[in-house]
């Protein structure tokens, strides 16, 4: 397998794991926030953090994970795990905010429907989630697209180490700096194709679920 293929596969794996991790806490958090009037300010805060600069997340995580930092003993700096954690943190506000908007809209309606038909709270929650799945999936994909396309976190806490933490975006930055524009453009196109491909796939799935 050549180096470019390895970089592409590594990027997909790192961003995919980060997205799964972020979804695992963001969607339950969004569900919790959508059901509480008092907690709505947390949702507003997360909405405001959707566009947080990736370099800032990278910098904060660097300070935490560096040897002098409070989590330095974990020895995670310049590993794929550090990028996964950073990207997961980066996309948490995005997935939570989009899921929150979806769940806020569907929760009242479907919870009332389920309860009026005799459902328990758990059965009502299950109905809300299943009815919101197409839009939750869209939120997850938006998170994935942001994760795979970000540079700041991957560069600062990943270190762009060949064969270990080099991703599509850090490679593009490197190839551009080295004047190897052909490779940079090729990886750029792969990045665009990945984003468009996933978006189309989700569109198909959503259509099948009859949301449109």
């Amino acid at each position, binding site marked *: 397998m050549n180096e470019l293929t390895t970089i592409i596969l590594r990027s997909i794996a790192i961003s995919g794991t980060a997205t799964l991790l972020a979804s695992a806490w963001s969607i339950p958090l969004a569900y919790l926030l959508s059901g509480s009037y008092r907690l709505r300010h947390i949702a507003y805060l997360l909405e405001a953090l959707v566009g947080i600069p990736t370099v800032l997340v990278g910098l904060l995580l660097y300070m935490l994970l560096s040897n002098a930092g409070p989590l330095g003993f974990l020895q995670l700096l310049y590993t794929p795990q550090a990028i996964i954690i950073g990207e997961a943190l980066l996309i948490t506000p995005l997935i939570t905010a989009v899921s929150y908007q979806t769940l806020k809209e569907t929760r009242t309606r479907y919870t*009332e429907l389920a*309860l*009026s038909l005799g459902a*328990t709270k758990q059965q009502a929650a299950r109905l809300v989630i299943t009815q919101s799945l197409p839009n939750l999936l869209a939120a997850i994909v938006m998170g994935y697209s942001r994760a795979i396309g970000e540079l700041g976190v991957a560069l600062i806490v990943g270190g762009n180490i060949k064969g270990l933490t080099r991703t599509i975006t850090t490679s593009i930055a490197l190839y551009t700096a080295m004047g190897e524009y052909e490779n940079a453009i090729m990886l750029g196109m792969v990045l665009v194709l990945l984003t468009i491909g996933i978006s189309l796939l989700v569109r198909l799935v959503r259509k099948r679920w009859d949301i449109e």
Partner: protein
Amino acid sequence: MGYRISLDNVSYKYPGQNRYSVSEISIKFNPGIVYGLIGSNGAGKTTLLKIIALIYKPNKGKLLYNNSDPWNNVVFYRRSIAYVHEKPIMIRASVYNNLAYPLKIRGISKEEINKRIDRVSRLFGIQDLLGKNAKTLSTGEKQIIGIARALIYDPEVIVLDEPFSNLDYHKRRILLDVIDSQASQGKTIILASHDTLMIEKISSKILVLENGKALCFGPTRQIIEKLYEYSCNS
């Protein structure tokens, strides 16, 4: 047999609002009688129906089902209430699965589910719709599916919000017959509507709401006359 439902000074306000949407309502609903609920937009009809259907818990006052507090065993009581929303909400699934949902959550067998769906779809004339995607139906079709879905589990209390609004003449006739038949079986039936003619036709007693308060309550004929004479007082 339906429940005797009593409200004693019941009030409710939505989270984040200062004003009570329903304020100090005291009334008793007896089984075997059809009650009509009328009032202008924003009078509190839907909120009151949702309180009766145990979807909203009153902030103040007491709600009793046969002298018991239904909120102590709310799932049990909810399972004997049919509440149909003004704007029908369909589950993203076929009509068959929409009708099956309340039965599935009660753990009823597939055989029994099929039997009940067959019975209710014949009653409402919706056999042709069973395989269709519920989201693609017309508003009138959704309305009748919503009513069929609520009646499929043979509830003791039937609460309908604007049940006639989207129905054609034929479906209205069917619904009137169903309501009559349910009342004669001793069910407690409460329905809200803007359609005073339908309310006059179907209900024995009427409650008039205004700004969340009970304006007047009594036998249908008497209340309708009072309304025409603008002399309705609580």
